[in-house]
């Protein structure tokens, strides 16, 4: 019995090795960047930002290019990505002008000619509406069911110094509206920059690369203003390229990292003349979670409205300071929940994750475990058939059939 057993083990091993080799070949770009993070770069004692407000700069140097990632809550919180074709490009901030909130051009990536693409996402408003009929469709709600929105540019923010983790390249911005409903509530944005390809720890475990950054938004403990309150988030995008008129929904058969979600939404920017190339993208899975540590049942779908072009820049100090000319701005609303799902008041928690990146989005691939199981599962019977067939042929060839059986 040891013979065949060893053969099976050997073959399983061989196919595993083979598969893992292939996997290494076509999965992930393996691109790495040297990432360094700094809070309020170049700020000296002459001016001071308002309490809790700051500018985070991540410099991610690759071979021959640099990705500058900027996060600021001066005005509405914004994440900005600027991609340069120089590994020595740097950020220059004119702090007095930047903090005055007026001067465009006070935040620059130099040399200016090296910037290939820049794009930003701004979290501008938080809508709350009374979904009395449980349709979870804010686009078709009467205007009367909407409460005055929370303007994120007016939020007060917790001390940034405490939440910035320079070593891990993460930071968390937590803020609150000044009204009573936010007494125990907070709106938070957890930011992460990445050195290489990987996935987040928590659902939806978006696939990121060295060319992208992630923000997880959550809204916790806010007192809903009605018994049937649902929330929606207004998101604006600004791009040096052409923002697509619609959000593409990419179907994926792989829901291993985000159970039961088979879609990926992607809002891309392209060069003005061609729409086939992607300069930058905003990506998310159409799912939000109703608990801080969710199980599958705590997930709820989210939907986005069609993007609408905006005439002016969103109310973010960073975006106004950076984008001086030739930009496109567009906005959409992300609504959470579906008819029949619990209202915000049930768990008083809502979380949603979005990824911003430059260049082509990373390609999803099956996990090594899935490939290994399929390879062993399908390979073993085939190997058995092969070796068994050969064995039986040899046996038949060596053992001559008894030509004449004794009669009786």
């Amino acid at each position: 019995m040891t013979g065949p057993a060893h053969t099976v083990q050997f073959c399983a091993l061989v196919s595993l090795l083979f598969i893992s080799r292939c996997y290494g070949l076509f999965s992930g770009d393996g691109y790495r960047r040297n990432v360094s993070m700094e809070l309020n770069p170049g700020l000296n004692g002459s001016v001071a930002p308002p309490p809790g407000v700051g500018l985070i700069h991540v410099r991610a140097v690759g071979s021959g290019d640099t990705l500058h990632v900027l996060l600021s809550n001066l005005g509405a919180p914004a994440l900005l990505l600027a991609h340069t074709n120089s590994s020595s490009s740097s950020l220059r901030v004119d702090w007095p002008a930047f903090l005055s909130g007026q001067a465009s051009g006070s935040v620059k990536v130099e040399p200016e000619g090296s910037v290939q693409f820049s794009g930003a996402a701004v979290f501008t408003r938080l809508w709350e509406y009374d979904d009395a009929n449980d349709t979870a469709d804010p686009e078709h709600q009467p205007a009367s069911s909407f409460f005055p929105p929370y303007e994120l540019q007016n939020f007060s923010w917790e001390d940034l110094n405490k939440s910035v983790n320079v070593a891990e390249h993460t930071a968390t911005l937590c803020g609150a509206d000044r009204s009573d409903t936010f007494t125990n509530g907070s709106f938070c944005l957890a930011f992460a920059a990445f050195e290489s390809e990987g996935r987040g720890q928590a659902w939806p475990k978006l696939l990121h690369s060295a060319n992208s950054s992630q923000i997880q938004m959550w809204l916790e403990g806010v007192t809903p203003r009605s018994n049937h309150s649902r929330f929606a988030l207004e998101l604006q995008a600004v791009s040096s390229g052409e923002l697509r008129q619609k959000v593409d929904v990419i179907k994926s058969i792989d829901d291993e990292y985000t159970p039961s979600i088979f879609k990926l939404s992607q809002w891309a920017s392209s060069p003005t003349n061609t729409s086939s190339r992607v300069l930058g993208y905003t990506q998310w899975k159409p799912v939000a979670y109703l608990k801080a540590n969710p199980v599958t049942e705590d997930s709820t779908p989210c939907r986005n409205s069609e993007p609408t072009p905006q005439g002016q820049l969103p109310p973010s100090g960073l975006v106004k300071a950076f984008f001086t000319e030739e930009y496109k701005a567009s906005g959409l609303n992300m609504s959470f929940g579906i008819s029949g799902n619990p209202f915000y008041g049930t768990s008083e928690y809502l979380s949603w994750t979005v990824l911003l990146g430059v260049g082509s989005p990373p390609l999803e691939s099956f996990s090594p475990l899935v490939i290994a199981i399929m390879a062993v599962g399908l390979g073993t019977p085939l190997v058995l058939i092969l070796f068994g067939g050969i064995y039986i042929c040899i046996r038949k060839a060596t053992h001559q059939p008894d030509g004449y059986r004794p009669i009786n």
Partner: protein
Amino acid sequence: MTARGSASDSGAGSRSRMADWGEGENLLNEDPHFPSPTGASGGKMWAICDPTRLPHRIIVLFFMCFLGFGSYFCYDNPAALQTQVIQDMKLSTAWFMELYAWYSWPNVVLCFVGGFLLDRVFGIRWGTVIFSLFVLLGQIIFACGALFNYFWLMAVGRFVFGIGGESLAVAQNTYAVNWFKGKELNLVFGLQLSMARLGSTANMNIMGSIYDKIEIARNSTGPVTLGIVLMIAATTCLLSLICALVLGCLDRRAEKILNKAEGKTGEVIKLKDVKNFPLELWLIFIICVGYYVAIFPFIGLGQVFFIEKFDFSPTEARLINSIVYIISAPASPVLGFLVDKTGKHVLWVMCAVVLTLTAHIMLAFTFWNPWIAMSVLGVSYSLLACALWPMVAFVVPEYQLGTAYGFMQSIQNLGLALISMAAGSILDSRGYLFLEVFFCACICIALIGVVLLYFVDNLKGGDLNLSASGWTRRLKSSSPQSE
């Protein structure tokens, strides 16, 4: 009997087991020497009341078919109401699948003792009534669990339901043999099987709309609504209980009139025999477990899968989830005939396993219209049932058949219980793709089993892969020697 769907599959097993066994009593003897049945008045009875005549047997057949209807209808209640059960009871998928696991647990043991209880302790009539009571009681407890919002009570209900359900199928087969042996037995088995499929299909497609109606009437969802709906489903079990009582009366009456003995399952279980089981039988067990655990837990979780991956409406999802049962009803007799005519059971089993694997791979790795994959699954499932269960009779001597079938069903239930729980947690943590890959792996184990079985049988010069004509030749060549 094994879990629902395969209860009727192993009907094919029981069929060979019972039909070949030639029990002592010649039950409904139409022997001319047999005293002609007479009514109390001594006059000639109406055909419809005469146990020896076809019209009366048709009446009996009617009750026999509806005897199992309730348990078949209610077995897949959780699958038909998957979203509602999960939402109303606030369950995770893992907990939801426990409902299926709890059904299987009692049958790990009952497969061995069910036949004994029917033959020696209760007798077929009281046994049938008692098992029907268990089914009804189990469903009522299950519904109460929902009504009062206790999940543990629902699990208890499924356990009690499981005690009754599988054994009831054994009783049903016994009745069939008792009344129809040597007459329309195969037809009767076929009809019972179709009835079982009808029950499952009706459940899958009706329960959702009953829930919707109750929801509208009460103007709310929640455990109470679910409880009411499950109580309504329990009426089918009440119907089955009534059938059991009527059958008991008719059977007793026939016994008095014809002076015949009560039916026996004829199952003799000797656990000692297990150590003498040949390698081929163990391989058949592996195929059985590996195959069925990739079918029933999948159907249990299917509805939401079709909604979420393929954007089906709930109604459409329930329909496609029942397609396996729908196809199986007409396909089983046809495929059974085909397998009987051609022989070569191992190749048919291999064919069925490969088809099922293909279907699962399609569901896992493509967005192709799932009707294709599910139809393939339906056909291959029916084919496997026709080819696998009779193989047992080829590899063990007749006196061990009862033990072999009991053992096969027992480990199948063990497998179903364990894999149901595993499937729920896999889905919760890793999603549908991984779950499908897991099911593919189970089927691959079954495939390895078939391939090994083919070679082992080939080397031993066994009978499993003989064509039907080969069988005839072998029988002919062996008969002169025995003379």
